[in-house]
């Protein structure tokens, strides 16, 4: 078992209460930061840690913080992105449900480092009961003097509140999140200006994922350098992986980055292999937006090297033979799953979640969904497959926000690796309808 920095105490009974959390070393980082460190010191530790944003893009958190504009007399805001909606990802929910105080603690230290006196957690509306858990934790932090005026006598003031969304994947995009938090439709903003300059209510704003913010706690406690010792290369520290799909033991795991994919899938310590003794057919390692990998490219790269759970190794081979670590939503498909059906499913998801603001995404995602639905239901043509490839190339990179890319990549990758399966649906329309679970005897080499 690797080290656990976030979930170490997740299963301690009562850890969701302030009292138990505090007894298990909680809020030490607030004491340390507010009493012995300047905001700049905290920022330096975060930079030294090499922490990369855990929401999916993997952008270095310390660097993101350094972009925050600090004009005189203008408030700055830290927003926590708890709008976890990427299919395959459910780690933030786990963290907030189990140890809400870890997020609250992370918010205090991070807000201190950024010089924010008012911070918000934006949580997806469906997690309403999690909102109540976190809100309770916030109230406890207030009554114990960790939030509010003059925290621990340091002179530092911070107010923290949590706000729900209303069911929109797009609000995980940081500017859509800001719009939503302003009580508007979740339409992503045109950038520039970036939130670091003009965010919530026109003020400089940083938006960080739940896990990123929680990770600030061990970074401050143990030091950035210590944190950076975990992991490989530019993938430092531990990461929460949401394992799901046809795995024997789906769930949320905290891994040290650098663990081999093979060990993660097959070891009993982790996912315990494929459910029901089946074989693996494909894997989407970083949430639905990232390219799917066929069986032969999951545990090994195209060059035959061991594939590791790191940002770099999963991306090895580019989009031709690689994928991305993304948000850590690790979705595994067994041999009986139909790639076409799943690709249609994801395309439908993105069409459903497109905000409809920019034309390539609004029209393109709906178009792809309709074509894929036809193919899956035995009404496809051979030229549809090339049409799909063409549409997704024209969405990719041409949209306001990354939702366009997120919609395009899975379709492109599915066609790239499983073209024969699409063709089979076209040439065997009757079977495609009757056996919509797909073709178990995939041509792909199965492990």
């Amino acid at each position, binding site marked *: 078992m690797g080290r656990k920095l976030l979930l170490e105490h997740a299963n301690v009974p009562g850890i969701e209460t302030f009292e138990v959390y505090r007894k298990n070393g909680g809020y030490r980082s607030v004491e340390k930061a507010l009493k012995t460190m300047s905001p700049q010191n905290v920022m330096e530790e975060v930079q030294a840690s090499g922490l990369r944003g855990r929401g999916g893009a993997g952008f270095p958190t310390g660097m993101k913080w350094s972009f925050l504009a600090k004009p005189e007399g203008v408030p700055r805001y830290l927003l926590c992105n708890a709008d976890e909606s990427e299919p395959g990802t459910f780690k933030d929910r786990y963290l907030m449900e189990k140890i809400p105080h870890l997020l609250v603690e992370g918010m205090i230290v991070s807000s201190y480092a950024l010089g924010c006196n008012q911070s918000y957690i934006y949580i997806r509306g469906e997690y309403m009961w999690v909102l109540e858990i976190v809100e309770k934790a916030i109230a406890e932090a207030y009554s114990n003097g960790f939030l509010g005026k003059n925290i621990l006598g340091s002179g530092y003031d911070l107010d923290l509140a949590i706000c729900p969304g209303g069911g929109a994947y797009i609000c995980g995009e940081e500017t859509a999140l800001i719009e939503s938090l302003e009580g508007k439709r979740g339409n992503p903003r045109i950038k520039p200006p970036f939130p670091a300059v003009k965010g919530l209510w026109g003020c400089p704003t940083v938006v960080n994922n739940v896990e990123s913010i929680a990770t600030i706690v061990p970074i401050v406690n143990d030091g950035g350098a210590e944190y950076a010792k975990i992991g490989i290369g530019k993938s430092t520290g531990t990461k929460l992986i949401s394992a799901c*799909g046809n795995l024997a033991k789906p769930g949320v795991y905290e891994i040290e980055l650098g663990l081999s994919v093979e060990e993660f899938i097959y070891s009993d310590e982790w996912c315990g292999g494929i459910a029901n003794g089946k074989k693996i057919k494909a894997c989407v390692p970083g949430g639905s937006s990232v390219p799917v990998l066929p069986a032969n490219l999951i545990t090994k790269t195209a060059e035959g090297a061991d594939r590791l759970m790191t940002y770099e190794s999963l991306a090895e081979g580019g989009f031709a033979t690689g994928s991305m670590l993304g948000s850590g939503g690790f979705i595994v498909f067994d041999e009986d799953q139909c790639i076409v059906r799943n690709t249609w499913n994801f395309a439908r998801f993105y069409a459903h979640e497109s905000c409809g603001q920019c034309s390539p995404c609004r029209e393109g995602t709906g178009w792809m969904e309709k074509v894929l639905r036809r193919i899956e239901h035995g009404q496809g043509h051979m030229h549809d497959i090339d049409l799909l490839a063409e549409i997704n190339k024209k969405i990719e990179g041409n949209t306001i926000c990354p939702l366009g890319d997120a919609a395009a990549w899975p379709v492109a990758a599915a066609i790239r690796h499983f073209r024969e399966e699409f063709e089979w649906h076209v040439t065997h329309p009757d079977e495609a309808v009757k056996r919509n679970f797909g073709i178990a005897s995939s041509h792909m080499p199965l492990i």
Partner: protein
Amino acid sequence: MSTIATNEYINQPEPEFSAEKMKEVQRIIGLFPEGKQKSALMRILHIAEEEFGGWLSVPTMNYVARLLNIQPIEVYEVATFYTMFNIEKPGKVVLEVCRTGPCMLVGSDQIIEHIEKKLNIKAGETSADGIFTLKTAECLGACGYGPMLQCGKHYHEHLTPAKVDELLDTLRKEHSDK
């Protein structure tokens, strides 16, 4: 189709929060700086939905707009954008079954089909007794615990047809005499 709300509820008087709920609403508005009360809209819409029959009628939305001192159209825009808000009157119980990839891999299609048969309705419809509305939802963040459905604030996970039957029976008992 075009979205023009033309149901029988449109001209009803605006509802009002109870004094107790109003306190909660004021607390929520107070979480935001002066003049930024519009930020409270989402949370208040959730509360309004809960309080006023499980959906947002035009009078309800107009009431919320007045509370926050914003234009009604701003509320309509938001209410129609976010999928959690019901702008049509649903049954007493809304079942939202997740159908996105990870849940589909573990059998959400079968669960949806099972409920459809059991209630003799299609997804999107309300059962004849007016108790259940069945909806499909996109990823609800329970991917490792699928198939699953959301009912109110509760997630029901690791569903099997037998578990669904049991849940439907319980819910029916709870709501049929109300």
